[in-house]
Structure formats: structure tokens, C-alpha cells
């Protein structure tokens, strides 16, 4: 399948401090991409760069095979974008805002926008600045979806939504969009939200994409291993692809990705009394990648 969006060698720095370094990835239609990273790792910068909101230092961004410049506008017709912060002109009413947006997008679906407003109980006559954070996010979804995007970009928006609404959007809206052929790039630090919808994972750390893998592969190959010793743990060499090594009493806990037969053989020969292997949840996996520090020692 051809790429909808391709990013190559993208770099961006602020005041000579590199935030994004040689970033490269591609998005295909009909898939949900999770962009994970700690706060301040550059998720928002990456998304704003893709959206042409801020300039990039170097690199190429292509949409549907065509490179897009910083000033380009047409490709944004195909992108629904929801940023993390307050977003709209507060002086407009909800109805005026929809009308204002409708004039920018060729595929604007006014009926869908009206239906969504009704479904989300948003008053068209209400001033945007009087809406709560959650209501503003709902409005942002209405605006983004009414444009009929081929790429839906969400920059960590769901933290302001109540749980039922968040679940509805994640399970119904986003999944439905992807099933309808829309690519979704979902940046979040609420990692657990992604597990039910994500197809592919990117982890941004230290300004680089340190993981670019299908979520199925992550689930299959990420393992927590606990070696239990009767006394002081014996010394043993690190297995291949070790992410984290941590001692808890007489136990040694390891996180390995990708898990392999060679790794299992090496650890089973470490002389441990107990040997437990279990799949790793996404949150733990992400923490192992970026939060706990890789290969931390006893």
C-alpha cells in the first residue's frame, strides 16, 4: 500500500537545542498510529511541523507522494487536526465557527457537523469561549471530522474528555475512521488508551524515533522475565535485546524486546530457582523504553 504521509530526515531545533533529530516514518491509509513519548520529547513539535504550523530545519515531508513545503496549504484539506491546547477563536459562536471552517474545506460535510453537534449536545449559539475544555475538544472533533480527512492527527487531546466520551471516541470514532480508510496519528502520553485501537507504534525519545513497529509485534515480542534466586542472585550475562534489568530482593526482573529463543536459553542457564516469562502491557513496555531508563543495573 502506498504511503499517505512520509517523513524523512526531519530535524527541528529550538535555540540550537535539537528537539527532533533525523526523524523518519510513513503512514498508510486505514491504520491507527500511536505516537508515544514523554512530556517534552517533541510529539507536539513533530505534529506541528507536519501540519505546517511551524517551520522545520531540514527534512522532507510528503503527502500522497508529493513533497509539501512550509507554506503549502492544499494538503491540509485532507488532514483533520486536533491540537492539545485551546484552539479556536473564542469570540465566535459554535455555529459561526463551523461556518467559518466550512469555507476552507472542499469536502466539508455540514450535515455531519450538525448531526455531531446534536449528538454531542453542543449549542450552536454558544460562544466558543464559554465552552468547557471538554466541550471545546468535542467541537474540535466535530470540525475535524466534518472536513472528511484522509489523515486524522490528534495531539494528546483526550485528557480533557470525560471517560465515556473518551471511550466513545477511541473505540467508535477513531476505529471507524481507520476502518473507513483514514489514517490516524494519535500522539498521547495516556498509553493505555491506545491498546484497544492502535495498529502501529512510534516511540519518540531523545529527539529520535526509537521504536517503529506494528503493535501486534510489540505484543508478541515484548516480555518481562523474572529470575528468582534462593539467596544472593548469581551473576549472569545480559540476554540479547535487553531493555531493563532491575533487582528486587533476591529476584532479578528483566524486560526484553524482542524476545527470542536465544535470550530464553541464555537466561534459563543463569542458575535461577524460578523462571517466569510473561507478555508485557503497552504501558510497561513504554515505561521500559523511555521511563525507567534502559538497562538499569542492580
Amino acid at each position, binding site marked *: 500500500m502506498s504511503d499517505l504521509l512520509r517523513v524523512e530526515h526531519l530535524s527541528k531545533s529550538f535555540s540550537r537545542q535539537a528537539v527532533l533529530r533525523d526523524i523518519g516514518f510513513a503512514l498508510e491509509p486505514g491504520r491507527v498510529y500511536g505516537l508515544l513519548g514523554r512530556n517534552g520529547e517533541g510529539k507536539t513539535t513533530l505534529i506541528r511541523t507536519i501540519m*505546517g504550523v511551524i517551520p522545520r530545519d531540514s527534512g522532507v515531508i510528503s503527502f500522497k507522494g508529493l513533497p509539501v513545503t512550509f507554506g503549502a496549504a492544499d*494538503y491540509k484539506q485532507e488532514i483533520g487536526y486536533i491540537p492539545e491546547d485551546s484552539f479556536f477563536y*473564542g469570540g465566535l459562536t459554535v455555529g459561526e465557527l463551523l461556518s467559518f471552517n466550512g469555507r476552507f474545506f472542499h469536502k466539508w460535510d455540514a450535515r455531519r457537523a450538525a448531526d455531531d453537534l446534536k449528538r454531542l449536545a453542543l449549542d450552536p449559539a454558544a460562544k466558543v469561549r464559554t465552552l468547557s475544555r471538554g466541550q471545546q475538544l468535542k467541537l474540535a472533533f466535530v470540525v475535524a471530522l466534518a472536513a472528511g480527512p484522509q489523515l486524522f492527527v490528534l495531539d494528546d487531546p483526550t485528557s480533557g474528555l470525560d471517560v465515556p466520551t473518551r471511550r466513545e471516541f477511541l473505540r467508535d470514532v477513531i476505529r471507524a475512521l481507520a476502518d473507513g480508510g483514514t489514517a490516524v496519528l494519535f500522539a498521547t502520553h495516556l498509553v493505555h488508551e491506545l491498546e484497544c485501537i492502535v495498529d502501529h507504534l512510534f516511540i519518540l525519545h531523545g529527539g529520535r524515533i526509537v521504536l517503529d513497529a506494528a503493535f501486534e509485534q510489540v505484543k508478541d515480542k515484548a516480555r518481562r522475565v523474572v529470575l528468582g534466586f534462593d539467596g544472593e542472585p548469581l551473576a549472569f550475562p545480559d540476554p540479547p535485546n535487553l531493555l531493563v534489568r532491575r533487582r528486587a530482593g533476591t529476584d532479578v526482573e528483566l524486560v526484553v524486546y524482542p524476545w527470542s529463543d536465544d535470550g530464553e536459553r541464555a537466561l534459563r542457564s543463569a542458575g535461577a530457582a524460578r523462571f517466569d516469562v510473561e507478555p508485557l502491557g503497552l504501558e510497561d513496555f513504554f515505561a521500559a523504553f523511555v521511563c525507567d531508563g534502559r538497562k538499569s543495573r542492580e
Partner: protein
Amino acid sequence: MFKTLLLKEWKDKAPIAAFGLALEAIFLAVFLIFGGNRDLRELIPGGFLIVFPFIGLILGAGAFESEFRDGAWAYLLSRPVRKETVWLAKLVAPLSVLAGLWLVFIGLMAVVPGLSDVVLSFKLPDMLESGLAFFPLILLSSLFFFSIAFSFSVLTDKQLGLVLGCFLLGFVLEGILSFFAFLAGGREMLTSIGRFPGLDVFGLALVLSSLAFLAAALVTFLKSDFSQPKVKAKALAKWCFLFLAAAWALSATWPALRPGPKEEFASGIEVAGNEVVLSTNRGLYRYDLARERFKRIVRWRSEYPDSAVGGGKVLYVLGYDRPEGPSLWVADMNGSGKKRLVGGGGQEGTQVLWFQRIRLSPDRRTAVFLYEEVSYTSPRGHQMSLASIGTDGTGFKKLLFGPGLAGAGEDYSWVGILAWLESPDSLLMVAGIRKGPTVRDRPRTVLWRYDLSSGAQTKLIESPVPVSFVPDPAAKSALSFSRRDLASPMEVSILDLATGTSMPVMTVERPKGSLSSSIVSPVWNRDGDKVAFLIRHDDDLLTPAVYLLKERRLVSSDDVRIQESRESASLGWTADGLKIILADPSGHSLRITGPDLAWKRTVPVPTSVSKNFAACPAGDAVLVSDYANVAVWRLDLKTEKWKKIW
């Protein structure tokens, strides 16, 4: 999309527009109520007009206010619309509001009786900038202040600080620009909108500076990262600096680039010795008769240029438009070897105001001239002097003239250098000397010879009435004509310049008009033995006459009658001295005749030549200067074919 953005911006600016309109309504009410009070009547418009730059500041400062206030930068920039379009809508909306407020105000000026007179005649008090017309200054200033505030509005939403800061910046920049304009305008103060020479520079600098700020805002908006205020501020500062430098450089070069007045003839085609020259308000051209080509040998900008040509050299005056004043120059006739002789701010504390009657000696080694000098140091005042200087720039000498000619209580009404006499060191000078200060005190005329080497001055003629003298090319004789008063007959005679003796030529019983309009276009042939002139018999009837010196005979012809209306007829001799060419504007033709006025031929001038033309014989041709169309035509006397050569 532009329209959508524009509508949204207009909606945002509606409160400011309403505020401006309310102020205009208040102003109108105050004017209608207090318009009768003379003091208030003059102060009201001045006080009110200052509002416009402030409205400009407020409109400009608020250009990106909603993006800052609502955090809508990302929203705005992620819409599928080009940034240039966004910027243009941001600019056009407030600018159109400002223009609209101006239009409403101008509309009020048009319909409210007396308002426009008061507003347009309002000037700043003398203590500030005496007489500077306020209305256009405020008009430009409102644009200028708007542009500054607009450009800085991409940096912050702190409206109050922005307005105050931009007001101060604009005030300082206007001061700097007016100082530059003062320098560019010849260091003359801002005295009036019409007379201040640097006003166009000042206005241009304001407009270009406004554009520079707008351009800096555009580039910053297009290229910079909105999320990085410091980076954005640095970028804006950089672009402002670059664009302002370019704007100011362009403004500074404007005095050299500005198109001058349309090229017009100063004197038309003239023959001086062997040279055919054309003097215009832009320079002196030499005409090559063989190649039929004009070449500009001297460039100047002057409505009344002064030059003297002869013997391969040209003497000319430059720089009446320069702060240091005019200067006298000499050059070769091919335009090379230009050299400033005198003037142009040479001596500390003095300045030449004008040069007159510049003359080259027959050997071309000396230039003489009259000039007026003003001294700013003690003793202060103006002084008219006669001076000579070598054409190599050495030997400047002030010359005393006419000692003993003017008596007690008398003053020189005018002084002229008629010619160099045979000796290169002798001048033939003429002066009108008036006893009293009023025009009713008719000056007496004194003609005298001034030996420059010895300083001896020999009176040749003294007449109690004004006399006109036209010397021949060798300055041996002069045609003179005078009359006692306007009702008296005019006496025309030939004066022997060596002896001062006079030989009567004729008496015009009922001359019309002044001396120069009664005897029209007197002109000697090259050998100096014949002089032709036109006699005015009536307001618009002229007949030619020729005086033959060797035969002491006057030939006149009533058969050749020229009906002259507004335009002037003129005469000229061909180089061989055998033909006289009369330019006849009323007949739109050239009359060609001999010295005996017996043989006659009429050659129509081309229909495209205006009636305001003069003819100048040169070689085998006649060159016709068409003053109205600024054109020169050449008539080949052998083939009688016309050709436009300028």
C-alpha cells in the same frame, strides 16, 4: 478564503470602527457648535486629526490579538489556506477600516460648509514647525504608525505596551526622517507643504518606511515559528532593519532619481560663432550640422540656464538647486574638461546667489560675469559685483565698475555687459542709473568702456532715457533705439563704439509698446555691415527693415507684412549674409528675402509645428525651434525640404 478571513477580521475590528465613527460624530458636533469661535475653530481640527495616528496604532496593534488571546495560532496556521492570504486579510481589514474613517472624514469636509477650509489650512503653531501643512502629514503618519504597530503585533498581544511603544518608535523615526529630509531638501526648514524642498523626500520616506514595516511583518509571519517569541522578535528586528535600510536608501537617492520637469527649450536653437547650440532646462546641446546630430555637452536642471559659447569653449552656471548655491563652470565644446571656476560654497560665510551676464573673452582665456553674493558674517548683506577669472580657474578678481557714473543718491537699476571689445581686456558695459527708488524715476542710461587691465572706464554715451543697444559681432558698432517717453517717436541710430558718435537711421513715429517690442529681433549679419530688424507699426503688424552701414541706407518694405498675434516673429541672417529669414507665426511660414528686401519667397513650415516657433539660419539650413512641442526642424535651403531633428 480571503473573503472569509476578511469578514472575520472586519467583525473583530467593528468596535474600533464604531469608536472612530463616534469620535468623528463628536468632532462634527463640536465644530458645528463652536465653529463660530475663531480660536476654537482653528484648534478643533488640529486636536481631532491627531486621533487618526492613534486609531492607526490601535488597529495595527490588534492585528493578531485574537490569535494570542485565544491561543488560536495553531488553528489558524493549520487551516488549508496560504499564509500570504492570511497575512493579507490581516492587513487589509484594519487598513480598510482606517481608510474608511479617513473617507468619512473627507466626506464630512466635502459636505459641511467651512470645514475643509479650516482643516486644510490648519498648521502647526509657529513654535513647532512653522507653517507645516498638517492634513497630509497626519494622513501619512496614520499609515506610518499603523504599519509599525501592525508589524510588531506579530510579537505580542500586550495592547497597551504595543500602542505606547510603537507611538514612541514612530515619533522618533519621524523625527529622524524629517531631519534626513531637511538635509536632502537643501537644509531648509519645514516651512510649508509647497515650498519645503525636502517634502517629497519626507513623504516618500514615510511611505517606504511604512511598506518596509509591512514587508518585515510579512516575511516574519511567513518564515518564523510562532511558538518561539524570541526567535520571532529577532527575525522581525532583522527584517525591519534590512527593509528600513533599503527604504531609507531609496528615499535618500530620490533627489537624484526624481524626474525633473519636462524638457523644455530655454532659448531654442542659437548660433554662437561657428557653434550651433540648443539650451533646454536640462542641459546644453551642441548640434553637428554635418552629422545632423545633437549631443548634450552640459547637463543641468534649471528653468533659466545661463551659458556663453564660443571658440570651442562653453561657460555655464550650475547648481541653483543646490544648498551650497550656484557655481560657474567652463568646459570644452565636446563636453570634456569640465572645471568649476567659482561659486558653490567656496568661501566660508559667504554664498553666491546668482551669476549673470557671463561672457567669454575673444581669446577664451578669461570669463567675466556679474554676481550677487550674500555674506553671513560681518559685514552682513548682499553685494553685486563684477568679476573676472581665467578659464583655467586662476586669477579671480573682483572688478570695480562705473566709479563716478552714479552720483550721490543714485543707484544702479541694472547693469549689463554688452560685449568684449577688440582688445581682449576691454568690456562694453551698460547700466541704468536711477535717482530715486521708485519705478517712476526712469533710469538714465550710461554706456561705457571698461579696460580691465588698467581699470580705466571711458564713458561713451549717457542718455537721460533708457536706451537699447545691440552691438555687431565685432563690437564696432551698435544699433541703438530709444525714446523720451511712451508717447514720443522712437529714434533708431547706429552708434560707433570706438568714438561714441551716433548716426541716425530712422524715426518710428508711433512706436508700440516697450523698446524691445517696438524694434523686434534686431540682428546683425556676420560681417557687421548690415543690421535687420522688424518695426512694429501696430499691435500686431510688423514690417522688416535693413540698414546697410556701408551705403548708409535704410531699406524697408511695407510689402512684407507680418501679422503677429501672441507669438513673436523673428529674424535671422544666413551665414553668407545674402539672405534674411523671417519667421512668420501668423502665416505659419518662413519668409526668405535678400538684404534689399526685393526678392521674396515663402516656405510653409510643417503643419505639426506650432505657431510658437523661431527660426535660426545655420550653414545651408534653417533650424526652426518649435517651443510648444519642444521640437526642432531643419529646412534645407537648397532643396527646401523639412526634417525633424529633435
